[in-house]
């Protein structure tokens, strides 16, 4: 670890991730999702190198298994029993961490269908039945040994798709229901818990086939990879993630594409980071320096879109990427290939060789989303305005280089 007197006094932060990704719907009238399992696989690849244990509960479809070879062998089905068993194991490990003076952090991620039951209680769909709000508090939040819990929920209605699925159940959007419940006073009893939820007002479910993922989850992963780190301190806090997603979605005018989120940092520490690149994460790092700007995305050689962002030309940006893999850094009509040789390696994008790249065009709606998402640059200016509009306290901006003689 980096030697710093202030940091040295802090307990070691260790993380665990429990990811539940379920394409299937419990309602016969509701179509299955296509990319919830892809989102689960990508969350797994983001968390696995940096967490002590990452659990993925998902039945990956054939396309996803082909895209992520070997991952299916590390998954378990998203059933209530397996979920509870996984939680018990993680809680035991986190309790040991606390005894050893470490600071365990649990990420609980859900991607899939959600629904509001007749009684008004929000649920998300597991393979063998609904998992209710009551279950959330009873099985995940209350008994947790974690010092902090970050809940990331991308339920059915929060998906931001190009292809409308339609035929979704009548009633309030699941995410709105979840948000309503989580934002209630009950959540306030758990100051160690932070939440990030999509609260799309639309009733239709969309997935964006260009990225083979849910747009909300893709934006969250892009932010956590470092694209939202506005003050370059290596940490992504809740306010940075919210502003990043707001900037990414701002250009979208189609009502089906409007993406709103609800996020609340853990009241115990409102600056608790969702992501901390300065830790020994087991990831490699892509440095995109000043002078390179605009809308860009990173795709690996399997065709998995890892992150999207719209970078200001005046500031550098660092993205954390899984190591031992090759990637393409792309922008409109141009691409550069890079290889992340090992964990901890830093690749300077300023030294990459750029070539031309073909631009796929698939359809009018898709083009509209392609052109609008991430169309607004994210940087200190947008962040400051966004945070000020919400009346929140911003993160401290970096002062730049030391100019004392």
């Amino acid at each position, binding site marked *: 670890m980096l030697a710093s007197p202030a940091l040295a006094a802090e307990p070691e932060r260790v993380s665990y991730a429990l990811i539940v990704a379920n394409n299937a719907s419990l309602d016969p009238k509701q179509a299955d999702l296509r990319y919830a399992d892809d989102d689960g696989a990508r969350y797994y690849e983001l968390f696995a190198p940096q967490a002590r244990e990452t659990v993925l509960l998902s039945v990956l479809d054939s396309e996803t298994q082909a895209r992520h070879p070997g991952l299916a062998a590390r998954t378990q089905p998203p059933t209530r029993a397996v979920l509870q068993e996984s939680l018990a194991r993680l809680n035991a490990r986190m309790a040991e961490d606390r005894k050893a003076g470490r600071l365990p952090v649990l990420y609980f991620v859900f991607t899939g269908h959600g629904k509001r039951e007749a009684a008004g209680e929000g649920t998300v769909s597991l393979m063998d039945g609904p998992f209710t709000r009551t279950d959330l508090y009873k099985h995940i939040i209350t008994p947790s040994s974690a010092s902090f819990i970050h809940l990331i929920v991308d339920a059915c209605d929060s998906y931001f798709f190009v292809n409308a699925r339609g035929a979704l159940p009548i009633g309030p959007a699941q995410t709105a229901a979840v948000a309503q419940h989580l934002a209630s006073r009950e959540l306030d009893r758990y100051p160690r818990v932070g939440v990030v939820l999509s609260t799309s007002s639309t009733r239709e479910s969309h997935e964006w086939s260009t990225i083979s993922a849910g747009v909300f989850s893709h934006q969250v992963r892009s932010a956590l990879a470092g694209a939202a780190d506005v003050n370059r301190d290596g940490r992504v806090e809740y306010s940075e993630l919210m502003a990043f997603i707001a900037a990414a979605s701002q250009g979208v005018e189609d009502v089906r594409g409007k993406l709103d989120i609800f996020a609340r940092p853990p009241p115990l520490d409102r600056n608790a980071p969702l992501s901390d690149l300065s830790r*020994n994460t087991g990831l490699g790092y892509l440095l995109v*320096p000043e002078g390179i700007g605009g809308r860009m995305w990173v795709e690996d050689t399997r065709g998995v879109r890892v992150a999207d962002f719209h970078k200001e030309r005046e500031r550098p940006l660092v993205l954390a990427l899984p190591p031992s893999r090759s990637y393409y850094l792309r922008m409109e009509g141009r691409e550069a290939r890079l290889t992340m040789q090992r964990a901890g390696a*830093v690749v300077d994008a300023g030294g990459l060789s750029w070539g031309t790249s073909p631009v796929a065009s698939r359809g009018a709606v898709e083009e509209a989303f392609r052109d609008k998402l991430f169309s607004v640059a994210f940087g200190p200016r947008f962040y400051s305005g966004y945070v000020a509009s919400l009346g929140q306290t911003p993160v401290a901006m970096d002062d730049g280089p030391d100019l004392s003689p």
Partner: protein
Amino acid sequence: MLLPLALMLSLGATPPGAACEGERVVILPFDMVALTRAEARHTEETLRRAVARTAGVCLEPRKATVEQWRALSGKRGPCADAACRAEEVKAFGAKWLIHGRVLGLGGERTVALVLTGTEGGEARSTFSMPALGAAAEDAAAKGFGALWGARGPRPAEVQKARRVWPAVLLGTGAAALVASAGFGMAARATEKRLSVGNGGCEGEGEALRRCFADGLRRGERQSQIATGLLGAGAVLGASGAIFFVWELP
């Protein structure tokens, strides 16, 4: 007396008034990611010491660099092309400009350097650097060494390389002209010898005739070689002169 000198040397500064023979290098204050300003400054100082020890490098003192930085504040921006970078190097009055950044990612300290020359060409180096001690200085020296070795050809070298061909052509042309004059004089001497008396030949009849004929052939050959060399020398000399003018800056 010794302390200020030691301080100056440790900071990589050239003592005022002391002529530094080498290429002028400016290191801009380090930027940082996931590290504090103090840590970035510490890393920068480590690199400065390594650069100052490099032969053929005249490192501008940090104070002067910071003053220029402040003076240029607002006029500078990130460059996307070689012309902009060249302007930036010239603005700092340097032959080489180093942009540095230190990143505290993944529990490691990584330094990313960009060396820019007066023509806007770039060389980049990224290397891990321990936080403290002699190992940090070694890593800085290695990292900078790799960067310094990878820098593009210096302008003087380019000029030198460019001027080789005109010199070769002019030299060869001159040599051809000298040789031409030599053969011309030899042909003239042969002509003179054959024009007087028996032309240096002895004997009578067939032997005398053969001696004259041989003398004439030798004179003719010398004359032809002189003419050929004269032409070649003229062409080479003219070509050399044309290339020389063409490559004038």
